[in-house]
């Protein structure tokens, strides 16, 4: 049985409450309301190590701080990429930043996707909307050691074809590696030649062996709950089904309590949990 992923940040952060200045290298518009910041530390000697699924606190000076998952390749560190959507005051201000501007970074925080534990198994990755961003580092690592894994299946649901993230990269991976990618959209014009429907509808016929599968899920909470239900219906093991939860993270180290989720703190005990660990509280309105 797999254990809950361990936090890997211990010892890496000198002062977890002190932001480190990073310089914006590029601001890339991904979709209508989603963009990616590419960042390098101002101190070029500074190292940065993170595991897929972890997040940073990004500080727009004078505006505020928000938690955003790291979406870049761990092997490219200290280059960091953060993909986010314009949803509030801080991300709105963040979108106005330009190449050469400075932003503060605290992190990395939280638990990670169990990429190593997936060796020798089929890997099913189910992403919904912007939920693909925290899964991309895991995909980079899986692709880097492709021979260690059996089938790798990415099931990706978005609102419309125009909302697809990392389209070119996915196409490249599909061509280069043995990677099954199935995309579906909630709505589309008649010119769309792909699947239409929610991502959960692809699970019953997706090509993987549920008895030897490790699943990673990220997306809106409702989508993750229904995805888990479909995976379990096919025979996937709850202790090998991982999902990334989201709450209002503030301190990042489990002190402030803003992200309390039942008996856990998402910033410290998550964001990546086994389904087995949070099954009793997932979807409970009072939690």
């Amino acid at each position, binding site marked *: 049985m797999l254990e809950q992923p361990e936090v890997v940040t211990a010892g890496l952060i000198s002062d977890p409450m002190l932001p480190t200045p990073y310089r914006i290298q590029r601001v890339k518009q991904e979709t209508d309301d989603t963009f990616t910041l590419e960042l390098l530390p101002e101190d070029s000697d500074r190292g940065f190590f993170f595991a897929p699924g972890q997040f940073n606190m990004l500080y727009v000076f004078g505006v505020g701080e928000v938690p955003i998952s790291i979406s870049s390749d761990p092997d490219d560190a200290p280059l960091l990429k953060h993909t986010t959507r314009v949803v509030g005051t801080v991300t709105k201000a963040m979108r106005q930043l330009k190449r050469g501007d400075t932003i503060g970074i605290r992190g990395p925080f939280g638990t990670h996707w169990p990429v190593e534990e997936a060796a020798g198994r089929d890997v099913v990755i189910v992403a919904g*909307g912007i939920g693909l961003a925290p899964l991309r580092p895991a995909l980079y690592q899986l692709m880097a050691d492709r021979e260690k894994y059996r089938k790798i299946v990415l099931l990706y649901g978005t609102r419309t074809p125009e909302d697809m993230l990392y389209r070119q990269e996915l196409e490249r991976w599909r061509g280069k590696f043995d990677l099954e990618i199935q995309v579906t959209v909630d709505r589309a014009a008649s010119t769309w*030649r792909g699947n239409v*429907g929610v991502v959960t509808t692809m699970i019953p016929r997706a090509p993987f062996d549920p008895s030897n599968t490790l699943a990673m899920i990220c997306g809106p909470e409702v989508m993750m709950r229904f995805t888990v239900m479909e995976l379990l219906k096919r025979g996937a093991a709850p202790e090998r089904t991982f999902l990334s939860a989201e709450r209002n993270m503030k301190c990042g180290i489990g002190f402030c309590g803003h992200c309390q989720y039942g008996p856990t703190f998402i910033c410290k005990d998550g964001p990546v949990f086994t389904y087995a660990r949070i099954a009793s509280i997932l979807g409970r309105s009072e939690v």
Partner: protein
Amino acid sequence: MIHTLGPILREHPFFHGMEEQYIQLIAGCSLNVRFNAGDAIFHEGDPADHFYLIRAGLVSVQFVVPHRGLTTIMTVGSGEVLGWSWLFPPYRWHFDARAQQPTHGLAFDGKCLRGKCDEDHDLGYEIYKRFTQVITERLESTRLQLLDLYGNHA
């Protein structure tokens, strides 16, 4: 030489666990079909006398929406069932269906099967049980789609 479609039905998840006598009976109401990309399979309002098991390809279930044109509501792919209007009065299609890709599968004579279900209620129960499962899954998917989960609701 007559090839029966029984083995194909027997292996299909939709018919999993169905008694052999019913498999043979249903196979007798079925035939292989192929559609080219762009072919219409049925049209809204036409008599719904068939249902389909898609073996390969992709079919769009569509609806004409004023000022928006033809809108795809869902797609049905390999291993899935297309069409249940043949089961319920007035036995007319409620949507259009069009092959998005070259598609092949099995078509079943719903009119014939309805008659057999009326004669043998055990068969009717098996058929309705299976279609209820499909309908339940489609209802759940539709509810999730209606939630517009990926929209920016901030």
